[in-house]
């Protein structure tokens, strides 16, 4: 009060009381839209790049399979051969079919034939492992697959 009376030139301070509210709204927005990774990766997962991609829209219609070399901590135990990771544990190729069917059984009836298998495979893995997985998927008649990649110009695997 005093200052205002004293100098007409000085402008009243802008109230910043609403600023925390705005920031909190932003915070809640980000908290809700972002997805926190639910699975811990046990294998290296450096996906290849491609640019003719389509989005994998709905998370609930996707079953994920990870393949890659075991990460540094596990490499001592498992060696450096590529391994398959299903739902937080390292699995054998024979377990792919039962795992996928079990995941499928948990989905609601209406979307069961829309389910896509997302293959998240490290770019240094050999194609042989991938075709084994595809063969397992064919056996259980799950035919929609998605080679999940990073978007970008495909850099050929010149190592």
């Amino acid at each position, binding site marked *: 009060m005093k200052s205002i009376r004293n100098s007409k030139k000085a402008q009243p301070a802008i109230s910043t009381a609403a600023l925390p509210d705005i920031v909190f709204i932003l915070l809640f927005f980000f908290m809700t839209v972002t997805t926190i990774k639910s699975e811990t990766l046990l294998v290296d997962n450096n996906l290849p790049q491609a640019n003719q991609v389509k989005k994998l829209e709905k998370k609930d219609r996707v079953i994920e399979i990870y393949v890659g070399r075991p990460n540094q901590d596990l490499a001592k135990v498992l060696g450096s051969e590529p391994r398959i990771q299903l739902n937080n544990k390292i699995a054998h190729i024979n377990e792919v079919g039962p795992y996928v069917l079990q995941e499928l059984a948990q989905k609601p009836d209406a979307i069961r034939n829309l389910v896509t298998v997302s293959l998240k495979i490290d770019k240094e893995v050999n194609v042989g492992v991938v075709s084994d997985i595809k063969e397992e998927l*064919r056996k259980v008649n799950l035919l*929609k697959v998605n080679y999940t990649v990073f978007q970008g110009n495909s850099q050929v695997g010149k190592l």
Partner: protein
Amino acid sequence: MNRNRENPEVNAGSMADIAFLLLIFFLVTATIQTDVGLDRKLPPKETIPPPPVNERNIFRLSLNKNDELFVEDGIMELEDLKIAAMAFLDNGGVPKGNENHCGYCKGTGSPDASDNPVKAVISFNSDREASYGMYVSVQDALTAAYNELRNRESQRLYGKNYVDMEESYYSDDMSHEEKMALQREIETIRDMFPMKLSEAETISKLN
């Protein structure tokens, strides 16, 4: 005296700072991750062997264990694959007047490439030792070839890109009628250039 009567106000000035810190923390740690990738449909386990295809309608690709790409009978660089695949698909080898003539093809009509995009098959064999990165790059180049041809035809027929049509089909903001119309257009284009990608051994018909 004056000061005692008023309730001391809690200083809320630093609240904004705290909230900002939280906000920045979430911005940094969280990634808005929508997965993208190449969609493929695996062939079902069937007992009936596929019908034999004319050799000229097969585009043979193979990847050896050193990640080298072989097209038909020679080594090819990955950058050239898209053009080669497009030339093969868009060839339109059947002459005018024949029932299999491809009216919309703009290719050279070479006797070594496909009769008609509807009949053309791309056969892709990959060595088990080849790297998955290279495998995906080849798949990407083939998808690019199909997309470019499909875009060309949908531009001609409907004045829009095939890729955009597909994208707007999957986003839900349109009425049922519009969606059905779009679906028909997409199917028309897909029938013009059906994606026939075989990873099994493709047997050719002996002439």
